[in-house]
């Protein structure tokens, strides 16, 4: 009798393992990509699933780079239909797509995301400039004596960087290098501060790789703590340690205003309006890319894209803005809503 049970088990196992070969077709949309766009794409997917007759799309959070890799792997139902990105597609990625037969890629810009520097509500709000951020966090900084040489970052407290800042140990919790947030923070905040030194800025034209190595390197002596991809964890740590400062996406600040406060950067505090108008210096665009060859093959792609680009979703008062997405200006939204309808593929020259 026990034998029979075992054989029955084996039979079902065999059935399962031969099953997928015949069931390769897919009736749900498969989306991959950025963890920053993930909280917005999931809301759209959920609404789309509830209001349309199609199944709810499946969304994997793989990071922008990982998403591009999967997306550009080829055409066919085993590959994803859409990839989200917290940066624009790179020329090299676009070429890889082309080489793998993914010819027609449609680009949609969905809005902006601000990166905030924040600390616990119990502490004093910080007022920083990009230069302060660079001096506090870069690996090598210009010699404090004023000469045009670099020294390993000597600053231990914030008031050494800028006398107007509090006398507090520099302790910044932020995302690891694998994160898109970190890429953007390095590029916009640290490099932004680096550029304020004329001689470093001049280096960009002469020796670009050296400039990048200086202006995007974060110190590794313990002042910058890689706190993992989990932004909630950073917020919990900030709450417990009033002396620490954290770096994360605007949507987490928006959702946790009872625990943390955003620092003023370059005279602008990270508010919805300031990021939307482009006044706030540390913000980036969010995109998603559609594989046109899958439109019509996988049901519902057009519907999902239209839902995402509808005014009630990515508009100024749309439900995505409640989740922390900063809408693009009206003209830009109109253009992308139109592009979403017509599905005009990229030529590759715009990159």
């Amino acid at each position, binding site marked *: 009798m026990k034998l029979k049970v075992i054989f029955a*088990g084996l039979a079902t196992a065999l059935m399962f393992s031969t099953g997928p070969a015949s*069931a390769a077709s897919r009736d749900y949309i498969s989306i991959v990509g950025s963890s920053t766009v993930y909280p917005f794409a999931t809301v759209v997917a959920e609404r789309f699933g*509830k209001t349309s007759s199609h199944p709810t799309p499946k969304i994997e*959070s793989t990071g922008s780079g990982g998403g591009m890799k999967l997306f550009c792997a080829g055409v066919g139902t085993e590959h994803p239909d859409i990839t989200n990105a917290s940066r624009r597609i790179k020329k090299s990625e676009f070429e890889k797509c082309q080489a793998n037969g993914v010819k027609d890629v449609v680009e949609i810009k969905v809005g902006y995301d601000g990166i905030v520097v924040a600390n616990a509500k119990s502490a004093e709000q910080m007022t920083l400039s990009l230069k302060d951020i660079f001096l506090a966090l870069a690996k090598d900084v210009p010699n404090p004596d004023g000469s045009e040489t670099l020294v390993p970052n000597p600053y231990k407290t914030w008031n050494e960087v800028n006398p107007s800042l509090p006398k507090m140990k520099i302790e910044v919790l932020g995302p690891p290098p694998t994160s898109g947030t970190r890429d953007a923070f390095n590029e916009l905040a640290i490099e932004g501060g680096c550029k304020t030194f004329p001689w470093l800025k001049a280096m960009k034209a002469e020796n670009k790789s050296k400039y990048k190595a200086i202006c995007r390197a974060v110190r590794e002596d313990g002042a910058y703590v890689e706190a993992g991809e989990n932004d*909630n964890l950073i917020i919990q740590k900030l709450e417990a340690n009033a002396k620490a400062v954290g770096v994360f996406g605007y949507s987490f600040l928006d*959702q946790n205003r009872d625990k943390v406060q955003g620092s003023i950067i370059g005279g602008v505090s990270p508010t919805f309006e300031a990021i939307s108008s482009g006044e706030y210096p540390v913000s980036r665009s969010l995109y998603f890319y559609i594989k046109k060859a899958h439109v019509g093959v996988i049901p519902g792609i057009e519907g999902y894209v239209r839902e995402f680009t509808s005014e009630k979703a990515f508009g100024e008062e749309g439900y995505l803005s409640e989740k922390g997405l900063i809408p693009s200006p009206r003209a830009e939204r109109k253009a992308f809503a139109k592009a979403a309808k017509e599905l005009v593929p990229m030529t590759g020259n715009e990159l």
Partner: protein
Amino acid sequence: MSKTTEQVRKTLARRYRAEKRFRAMGMASVLFGLMAVVVLFTDIIGKGHSAFVETYIQLEIRWDQDELYIDDPTDPDELAYADYDALIKNALRERFPSVEGRLEKRNLYKLVSSGAGYTLRDRLAENPQLLGTTETLWLLADDDVDRYLKLGQEAQESARLPEQARAWVDELVQEGSTDTRWNASFFTHGDSREPEQAGVWGAVAGSFFTMLVTLALAFPIGVAAAIYLEEFAPKNRFTDFIEVNINNLAAVPSIIFGLLGLAIFINLFGMPRSVPVVGGLVLTLMTLPTIIISARASIKSVPPSIREAALGLGASRMQVVMHHVLPLALPGMLTGAIIGMAQALGETAPLLMIGMVAFIVDIPGGPLSPATVLPVQIYLWADSPEASFVSMTSAAIMVLLGFLIMMNTLAVVLRKRLERRW
């Protein structure tokens, strides 16, 4: 007195002391472990208990035909596209007639969960005769309202709910138009980005299908391998090599099995991503060594006299194994299998690689539909920005712990009831 006795007397006190110290250290270790468990449980239960109830708001809903744009309430097409949110907005405006201005009204509409419209749709689909009538309904509140009411007095100051909305909610509370109820949707819904609508059922179903595949593969293969190695295989270099390898495999980090699964099942065999079949196959690879090792141990514990007696009566070797050894070893094998399954149930790392870390709303209908599993759901919620997901995370951990405790208890009970001692 002899010299030896004298020496024993001298050191006796010291030896007693050493023994006491040794015992105290053992007790301290046990206490430390218990304390860690108590701290863990109080933290999880303290954070998670509030997720099991949610706030409802009482509103007077007028089933207005014109607002809904419905002529025929039995037509599913019309029902699908009707504007149910308009009914809720109307009800809220009538409840708070003094609210004016776009922004204020927007805040007002946000008191009720965005999923409430779908509740109305389902209600109307079931009772078409409601159209044109007015009724008092309890609707799910938004997670910000829910959180505001769950926070203590002083913490309320800093809740995410706007100042005005707090006044409205306080008014509703005073009039008894709010109610906290058992959060049934937590156990019946799939994932959602709105904390008040999210549930663990999708993840539980996904875990079930994944475990089914794992059990269907790992148990028979593991038992067959163990029987062959113990009862039939010759003792030589080759079987020694296999044994060493099985023991090694049991210690391989689980993420490696995920990478293997990605390379073989998805890239080579072209299986779809994010489905329980692939998850089950990967977890099978992971649990096989555990099952083989425990099955071999329980076969070894069957006394040789039973085998010899059966052989002496003329049974073939297969008959010996099937009629005598296997039934006697089965309780031990089952225990090992259940513990292996419990381990697989809590695993996330290998599933990361094969796309089971995904946002999936629809409840999976079988081992071939996209799914996620309980520990992955916990991971995803822990990573969500909405503050209410913190308590949802702890509540999901409680559900997972419940399953694990159940499985481990089953293993203990099986062992106690079926095990034979010689």
